[in-house]
């Protein structure tokens, strides 16, 4: 059998090799992915804040159900939001996703609450020019913001140790 293949014209090899390579690449990718070493990937989202910043609503819900707290500070890798935002709460990260639908979902699930936190998130949304998100958060409330203050509060946090 092998001998017969060796004797094949060049044309047969030309037809066969690139398509085989494509399949082998996908198969190798699948095996590596299955073993937890996904190629061409920065790795899994590390926590609920990263999931929220990536706009991955399903992952946010899964982590909420597992007990992760949206309101606490989480380390966020530089490529997820920005190198100047090493720490963010899950809610701040959700604002950074600029996904109004995600923020509305969290609001419907009563994850945001009223008072200072909502006010901070509205101002943060305005500071990063995510007006849609600010509208979702503010609703018909009248909230005033000092431009740039909420963003500065986030940026001045020390990097995660």
């Amino acid at each position, binding site marked *: 059998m092998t001998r017969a293949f060796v004797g094949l014209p*060049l044309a047969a090899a030309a037809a066969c090799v690139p398509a085989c390579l494509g399949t082998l690449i996908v198969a190798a990718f699948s095996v590596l992915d299955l073993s937890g070493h996904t190629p061409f990937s920065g790795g899994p989202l590390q926590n609920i804040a990263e999931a929220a910043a990536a706009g991955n609503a399903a992952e946010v819900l899964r982590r909420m159900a597992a007990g992760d707290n949206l309101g606490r500070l989480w380390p966020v890798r530089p490529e997820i939001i920005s190198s100047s935002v090493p720490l963010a709460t899950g809610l701040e990260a959700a604002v950074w996703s600029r996904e109004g639908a995600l923020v509305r979902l969290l609001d419907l699930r009563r994850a945001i609450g009223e008072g200072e936190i909502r006010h901070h998130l509205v101002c943060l949304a305005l500071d990063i020019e995510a007006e849609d998100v600010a509208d979702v958060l503010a609703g018909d409330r009248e909230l005033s913001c000092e431009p740039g203050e909420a963003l500065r509060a986030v940026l001045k946090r020390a990097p995660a140790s």
Partner: protein
Amino acid sequence: MLLATAYAAVVVFALGYALLGLPVQLSDSLGNMAKAQDLSLGDLVYGEFFQASFLRPFLWAHLKVLLILSGGDYFTWFRGWHVLQVALLIWLYLCVVRPVTPAGAAAVPLGLAALVGGHTFVGTVYEAFPINTFMTILLCVYAGAALALGPPGRWRDVAAAALLVFAALTVETGLLVGVVVIAARMAGATGVSRAGTWVQVALIGGYFALRFLVLDVGAPGLTERSSGFGFSVLDPDELLARFGGNPVLFYAYNVLSGLSSIFFAEPRGGVWALTGAVRAGEVRLADLVGVLASAGGTSLIAGYVWARRAAWRAWSLDADDRIVAVFLAVAAANAAIGFAYSKDVILSPAGAFFALALTVAVRRLSQQTHAARLRSAAVGILLLALSSAWAVRGLHLHAVLRAEAETARNDWAYADQWIEEQRMTFSPAGAELKRRLEADAVMRLPARDPVSSDLMEVLGID
């Protein structure tokens, strides 16, 4: 054959793994499953004989049977069945092309890349309702080809008749089973006897009589769906405004653009997207590769027919010729059946036979020895380029599935809002079904790691 089978197993593994990352989709599946849940099998099937525009009782029977078998473990059963269907399809592909020689085996990777990388195939795997009806039809038409192109046998007549009844009452493109059997017989195949072929003709006639005279189901009108036309998609109101008085022009457009899509992967869903992108100077490499792959494959098949023109003129066709002849018949009939609106996946049977015809053409070309060294090199370069283009198309499919897995999972996160927007209501059993599907998607299937967006963009995913 052993090597080709082993290779096919690798293709199935990779596709199966990608499919198992996809939750049962919300918008495509929940309503259908809830409907099937609330009715008995008999009531469900009986009711489907009296719908307007569509006659698809076995589509619902298929769904209901799997729903019963699943016992509530929906993801395992529905997605598992989808993977099994892919495996069956690839096995049937091997049954039809029968790669028993080294040259035949060498043509299989390119043929399979054309099967799963084709633009018409994508819709058979990235969506499901929750059974992908179009995948079911691919299995039926390939099974029809395996029956008709194989050795004679009375049981094949019976199996082909049963297959046609099942496929035609699953979705309209199922009628192509009859086209496959009849075309194969006309091309000289003897797997299904002359009498069995006449039964196919009678069943097709019976289908039309049942649909239009007995049940008065009719055909889909302009108001059923949005459809591509020219460089954009027109919604039903726009279609009605533009073609309401004379839809024949629109139907002719759909048939002709369907044919062009089968052979050249352009237009897509009736929209001349690549042509528009060229005009706007915004061509994406992945789209261009898709068109080049299809056009190259079409050229090769045309070259095959040209090389065999003496046999075709004398209508003295061999086994390979018959496969190509059946492809041409299926392409014409598939484009005609899709007259009502343009959708890539409707053309998937023709796309699947394109892969068979391409395998045959590549096999024949690579078996030939060319006296002139220059010509031999040119053939090698052509096949190398074509195989590379189809390999890229295969990678594109996996990128689509990866992206869709994340989208489908996220859709479930917003399920309650979507259900409210759709004004859907559920029985207690339907509500439990929704809860389980949601839990499957969000809790049971953790997201796979995100892949570099740069890589996804190269593969044609925005």
